[in-house]
């Protein structure tokens, strides 16, 4: 068995079934889910209580393709389900691919919900995959097993984490704690900002390098300079005075970048975008903007936090909260298999305020903190973040 990096710090866990598959009667799904949890509670002191209307430790749902996390399902076959290791927000949450044919006690046809649920709950409790083919935590689906008993490998694994009871007790339970994880709501939006106008306080809406100049956007203002350390020596301009045709109801810019090949300038605000040639709207681009769904971004995404051209591969990336997308190489549509989870950009905080490429390096910003990214190692560089004050010469 292999342990995941996290575990629950309490043993009285709750779960909630957010929706049901049409493949099975709902009461059967509830029973199967309860039975799948029982697999784990039979060998530990863990308890699982279903709740109906409140946030639970383990949120369970059936979903298809993109479903608001960074791990879209792939249609029928291959990936059947996934779960998040214990933790805040999405931690413990378990998702089943609705494109599968879910069955109970199935022999051959369809996917047995109990077997998959029991496996996924192993992840939700803190177990990773095992290379023991007889183990429940073996990653490949083994089909329906009549009178299933949790194998020895999995029993030892879960008892290492939470202590045990039953035939294989090997480990004592760890000291209990009454602290519960933060089960507050999961928001896809950064908190609303009040229009700060001192760039040295951070909280940028967007930073972009356009025609070799650094542009800083905060609220309806922007500053520009070839040399960031002198950028505050001049007064800011307002976005509407300079970028002709930007509608009055656009009060701030969420993200901006200069396209690396067509040299056009893209602005994002809310769920719409505008394309500029210089400081005039591009020919034919409507003043009201276009929806970001044109790029293939899902409809439920309300804003783009950052867009940047990654120096490593010269590709365009869009970020919204804990998800990111990559444009296809030859056009302006997102690649399949996206969004992906922002954890790939190791140590970059989410949600980011903005991101930009400057002198061949990629920087992410949040608040007053600036994170230089180490492309080859795919993580924030050592000795970063640093205060934005250094960059701006505050």
């Amino acid at each position, binding site marked *: 068995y292999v342990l995941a990096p996290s575990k629950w710090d309490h043993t009285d866990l709750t779960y909630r079934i957010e929706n049901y598959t049409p493949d099975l009667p709902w009461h059967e799904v509830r029973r199967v889910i309860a039975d799948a949890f029982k697999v784990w509670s039979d060998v530990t002191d863990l308890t699982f209580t279903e709740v109906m209307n409140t946030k639970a430790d383990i949120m369970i749902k059936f979903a298809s393709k993109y479903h608001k996390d960074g791990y879209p399902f792939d249609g029928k*076959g291959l990936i*059947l389900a996934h779960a998040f290791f214990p933790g805040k927000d999405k931690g413990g949450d378990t998702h089943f691919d609705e494109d599968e044919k879910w069955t109970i006690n199935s022999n051959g046809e369809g996917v047995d919900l109990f077997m998959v649920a029991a*496996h996924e709950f192993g992840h939700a409790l803190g177990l990773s995959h095992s*290379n023991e083919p007889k183990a429940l935590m073996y990653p*490949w689906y083994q089909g329906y097993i009549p009178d299933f008993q949790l194998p020895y490998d999995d029993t030892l694994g879960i008892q290492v984490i939470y202590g045990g009871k039953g035939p294989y007790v090997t480990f004592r339970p760890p000291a209990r704690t009454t602290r519960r994880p933060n089960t507050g709501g999961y928001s896809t939006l950064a908190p609303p900002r009040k229009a700060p106008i001192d760039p040295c306080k951070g909280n940028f809406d967007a930073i972009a390098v356009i025609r070799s100049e650094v542009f800083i956007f905060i609220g309806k203002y922007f500053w520009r300079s070839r040399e960031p350390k002198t950028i505050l020596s001049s007064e800011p301009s307002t976005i509407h005075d300079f970028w002709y045709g930007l509608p009055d109801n656009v009060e701030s810019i969420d993200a901006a970048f200069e396209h690396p090949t067509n040299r056009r300038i893209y602005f994002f605000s809310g769920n719409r975008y505008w394309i500029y040639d210089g400081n005039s709207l591009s020919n034919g681009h409507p003043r009201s903007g276009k929806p970001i769904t044109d790029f293939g971004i899902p409809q439920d995404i309300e804003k783009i936090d950052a867009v940047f051209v990654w120096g490593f591969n010269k590709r365009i990336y869009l970020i919204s909260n804990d998800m990111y997308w990559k444009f296809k190489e030859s056009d302006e549509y997102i690649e399949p298999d996206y969004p992906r989870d922002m954890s790939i950009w190791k140590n970059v905080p989410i949600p980011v305020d903005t991101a930009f490429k400057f002198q061949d390096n990629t920087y992410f910003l949040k608040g007053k903190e600036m994170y230089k990214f180490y492309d080859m190692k*795919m993580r924030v560089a050592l000795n970063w973040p640093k205060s934005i004050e250094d960059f701006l010469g505050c």
Partner: protein
Amino acid sequence: LPVSDNLEADALKFLGRFGYISSAQAEQGAQSLMSVDLSEAIKKLQRMGGITQTGVLDIRTRELMQKPRCGVKDPVGEEEGGRKKR
């Protein structure tokens, strides 16, 4: 040596999706991957799947990559950190 062009894109996609090549390699694309890395990644996949570790995309490996499975990454990369195998 760079990876030859005839490697199936699906195999790379699979290896990236399930943690057998690093997040960096998966994001950067095939051009960042050396053949020795790829062979090692395939061996790790074969080890996890319980099939002979040839280090090449043989028929058993291709079959393994088609089989239904969990979407959680396998614990083979160093990047996840903190994982203990016993």
